[in-house]
């Protein structure tokens, strides 16, 4: 990269207005620039502040009413139920020829979606981590120089496909494939092996379940983890690798050494993938089956926090329902905060350590 400083400096006269002249303390270009950039930086803090404030204030009624029980209860029934009143004889009561109804209050417990988010994210990570690490090793240790940019580009393209497009693909291609060719044999096989009940489902497999949701998430976080871990591996000092090779290590032994050396950075990459997986909405909502129940089987329909929001927020008419959904959103946001703190601590911590070592 070259830069012709003389032309840059020559254009000094274009600055014209006295507003920008140096020495005018009140409106100096420096001051304006400083205020503008400082304001923009503050604006970013304000954005998170607004997000937290709005979600918290909307969630407050729900927090007050349910307390911690919100996170541990698995009953989610957003609408009032109308149930006929039964008399002492156990019969439905009639009044003016109409059935007397009673109303049962809605109930909100977020445990099923917390469970769904956790399990689907774990599936996504289990599938995505080995593939991403392999690809990043390929990009740093195997691929010839000319091959790296196009392959990186293709992997980044995978990240650019919109969520809704993944959803359509998963709904019409992946889910039927799982339903017809993957889940039935799993079901047969694991029905008889004790301890592997989570791979078995009693009903007929539908393909739209926790497993499918997890796989779509895996595809969607692949490019993020790959790109991050590629950068982390690239930062490994050459001496580390060359030293290992000089000592007679095989390719894999030196590669493993690299992975081990940069494990905290890789963990940070995984955490970012996890943050993305837990917040992914549209694609998951299309294939996870949307069932607010905790089932041990991976082939049972489930629900995640974000798919719950996509499913219900637009239609939440009751104050309690809306507030409960806001609390789910708040929990989701705090979780994403936590993942980022962990990821950041690991990456920053590592950088600080390696800086100290030099």
């Amino acid at each position: 990269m070259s830069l012709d400083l003389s032309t840059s400096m020559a254009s000094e006269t274009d600055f014209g207005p006295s507003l920008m002249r140096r020495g005018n303390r009140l409106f100096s270009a420096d001051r304006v620039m400083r205020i503008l950039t400082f304001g923009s930086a503050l604006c970013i803090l304000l954005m998170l502040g607004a997000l937290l404030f709005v979600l918290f204030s909307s969630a407050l009624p729900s927090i007050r009413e349910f307390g911690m029980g919100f996170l541990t209860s698995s009953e989610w029934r957003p609408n009032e139920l109308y149930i006929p009143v039964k008399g002492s004889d156990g019969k439905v009561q009639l009044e003016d020829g109409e059935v007397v109804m009673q109303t049962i209050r809605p109930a909100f417990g977020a445990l099923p979606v917390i469970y769904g988010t956790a399990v689907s994210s774990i599936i996504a990570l289990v599938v995505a981590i080995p593939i991403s690490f392999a690809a990043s090793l390929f990009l740093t240790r195997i691929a010839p120089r000319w091959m790296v940019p196009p392959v990186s580009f293709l992997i980044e393209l995978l990240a650019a496909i919109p969520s809704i497009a993944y959803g359509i693909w998963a709904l019409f291609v992946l889910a039927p494939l799982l339903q017809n060719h993957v889940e039935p044999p799993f079901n047969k096989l694991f029905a008889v092996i004790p301890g592997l009940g989570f791979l078995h489902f009693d009903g007929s497999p539908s393909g739209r379940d926790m497993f499918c949701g997890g796989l779509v998430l895996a595809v969607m976080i692949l490019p993020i983890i790959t790109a991050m871990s590629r950068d982390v591996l690239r930062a490994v000092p050459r001496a580390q690798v060359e030293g290992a090779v000089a000592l007679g290590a095989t390719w894999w032994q030196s590669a493993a050494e690299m992975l081990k050396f940069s494990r905290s950075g890789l963990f940070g990459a995984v955490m970012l993938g996890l943050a993305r997986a837990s917040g992914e909405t549209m694609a998951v909502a299309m294939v996870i089956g949307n069932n607010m129940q905790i089932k041990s089987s991976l082939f049972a329909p489930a629900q995640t926090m974000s798919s719950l929001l996509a499913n219900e927020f637009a239609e939440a008419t009751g104050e309690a329902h809306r507030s409960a959904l806001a609390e789910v959103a708040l929990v989701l946001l705090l979780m994403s905060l936590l993942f980022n703190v962990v990821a950041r601590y690991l990456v920053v911590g590592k950088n600080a350590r390696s800086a100290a070592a030099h």
Partner: protein
Amino acid sequence: MKLTRLMKSLAGLAIALGAGVSMAETRLQGAGATFPNPLYQKWVTDYQKSHPDVKIDYQSIGSGGGIKGITEKTVDFAGSDAPMNKKEMAGAGASIVHIPTCAGAVVLAYSLPDLRGDLKLSGPIVAEIYQGKITKWNDAKIAALNEGVALPDIGITPVWRTDGSGTTFVFTNYLITQSEDYAGSIGAGKQVKWPVGQGGKGNDGVTAVVQGTKGSIGYIEVNYANANKIPFALLQNKSGKFVKASSDTVSAAGEGALDQMKAPEHLSVNIWNQAGDNAYPISAFTYIIVYKELNYLKEQSKAKALVDFLKWATTEGQRTAGELDYAPLSDGVQKKAAEALHGLTWDGKPLMGAE
């Protein structure tokens, strides 16, 4: 120099923009029920041809979304398959009017590729399937209704709506008339907690799950079943007859509605489980919901345009309804709708007789 040129062009733009603003046009925004959406889209485009200054938009965000929209006044009118309940009406803060626009049927679509002939079901059996009490297609109770049909020995996957919806409201309200046991355990509402089966978001979600899942059964609006060529069950009605959902059989169910429509404020009536040889049992009206006092629209021209459109929709528009597989309103119900429209006011004065 550059700056002045920029200022000039900005000023020019502002003038051009100002000129645009002065064109008189009235915009109305509706949102809500997904079920009548195709019909409403046809209505608003047709209506614009004869009334080019009136631009009406409708977005299908679900009945619950529509009710939320009208309550928070984020839309001018709401579409809903389920009438607003007392609590929702109280939440709206002012008196609400339901205008029925057409009627539709909820059908039980199924995926049994090897089944030959029609499947017949009854309300109590459907209730047991959704409670998880009947789990196989060749259950004796189903077989008893379907003599001579070879029912497969596979499991039943009931499919339901995950979102709050008018479809679920109608379906569950029908089921509580069919089974006390069901009514006591699951109940009725826009969204209930199902003990078994699988969810799909929206009619399309349920349709897709039913299409993709062998052995499944799902409740969807009839036009989704027809458009996707999914078979649906004949249902036993109150008179004991097995009836297929169509615009005729839904209209037959709608005939009983007139007796229930006592006052213009009470046009939200139930037409499920009606007697009559030809009445399809899971039928329901769909409504456009507005406030009785229209000054929430802020401009009288908007209020006038809305009333005119609703008048047109409940009369001339009904012809289009039949073309698109919806059951049109009977003459009697149309008259009731007109009465309700006459009751809509601007600052307390009726809008319709005003011209």
